[in-house]
């Protein structure tokens, strides 16, 4: 499996966010997207899943399911955690598992993997920012999808949770997945290549 982008450009609000961007990520590889604030890291991830319109260029996925779009084979972890405060931790996760297409799912392995298993019956309103982040990371584990697009996944996570996330990402890569992570700091993957945005000045 190989996700490749050729000559991507993105315009938002009458401004060129980035242009002439090309890269490729193969199965088992991670790409750390770096750059100053406003360089278009989030816009790039949102462009890949179709939430921002592609102004120019071509995105293609070789070796994926030809019936599905890239967005349907990708997990997107955005800035917001997509959680409902009035639902419990378990209900939130079960909803996303069901919505993303899991038939019958046991959410406990995913909750254990992010260290939230004891809180399954707690309303999500009572979670801290880091716990909310971990719960939305658990979403990626309930339904298996090859592409992970992570927008600053380590923000709000403490040191041990960052380590845990690095472990989950390594397991995903070892299982033939690929990762694009927008980040400022280290994401804890030694093998990650870097894609630096912001060289193109608008």
């Amino acid at each position: 499996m190989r996700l490749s982008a050729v000559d991507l450009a993105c315009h938002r609000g009458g401004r060129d966010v980035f242009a002439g961007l090309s890269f490729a990520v193969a199965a088992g590889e991670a790409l750390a997207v770096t750059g100053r604030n406003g360089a278009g890291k989030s816009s790039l991830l949102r462009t890949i899943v179709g939430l921002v319109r592609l102004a120019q260029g071509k995105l293609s996925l070789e070796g994926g399911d030809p019936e599905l779009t890239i967005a349907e084979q990708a997990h997107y972890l955005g800035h917001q955690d997509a959680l409902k405060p009035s639902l419990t931790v378990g209900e939130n996760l079960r909803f996303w598992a069901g919505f993303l297409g899991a038939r019958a799912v046991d959410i406990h392995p995913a909750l254990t993997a992010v260290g939230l298993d004891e809180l399954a019956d707690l309303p999500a309103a009572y979670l801290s920012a880091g716990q909310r982040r971990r719960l939305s990371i658990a979403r990626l584990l309930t339904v298996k999808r090859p592409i992970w697009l992570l927008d600053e996944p380590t923000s709000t996570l403490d040191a041990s949770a960052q380590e845990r996330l690095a472990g989950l990402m390594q397991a995903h890569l070892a299982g033939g997945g690929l990762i694009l992570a927008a980040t400022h700091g280290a994401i804890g993957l030694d093998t990650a290549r870097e894609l630096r945005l912001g060289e193109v000045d608008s």
Partner: protein
Amino acid sequence: MTPLAAILVRDMRIAVRVGGGALIGVLFFLVVVTLIPFAVGPNLPLLKQIGPAILWLAALLASLLALDRLFAADHEDGSLDLILMSRAPLELVVATKGLAHWLTTGLPLVIAAPLIGLLLNLDAPAEITLVLTLLVGTPALTFIGLIGAAIAVTLRRGGLLLAVIVLPLTVPVLIFGVAAANTVGPLPFGTPFTILCALTLASLVIGPFAAAAALRQEME
């Protein structure tokens, strides 16, 4: 669980939890209708005459009450991004959210209407026609409201805009709903009721498509 069933279950759960819109809609409906006899005074023939219109107006306002959060909440917490990415057609997701909203807001109004109708001196035949027209007409109010909810999704004070956009669109439903519910008026029941059914069927189709188009446009 299929994606649409998951949405239906989640939205209904949220609506009945603390802070959800389900109970508030019914309470608002009851309060508004209860105020009318105090304002109009104990004039029983007059109450009987304006009763169906009052109940319909109150139902209209109550169905709009929680509607502005329908997509705005999903937009603010990022759920809408994942919904837009999903394989489930957006039109069907929107229609499912509309169904969940009607089941938790519209249906309780239909059930509460005969009780509160007693306050407005409605007799048994008037109660039955009222419940029938509300049962058929409230889905139209919700599904027309979906359009406004989708247009107002990115706005902070979307509720006001929602009312301004949606209320004019609901005029035909209101006219034929009240005409069918009015047993003392000159019109027979069948004609306006049939048109009300047609309006509901049309809004069930147009509402989700228009709302989905608005959401796609705004997410750009």
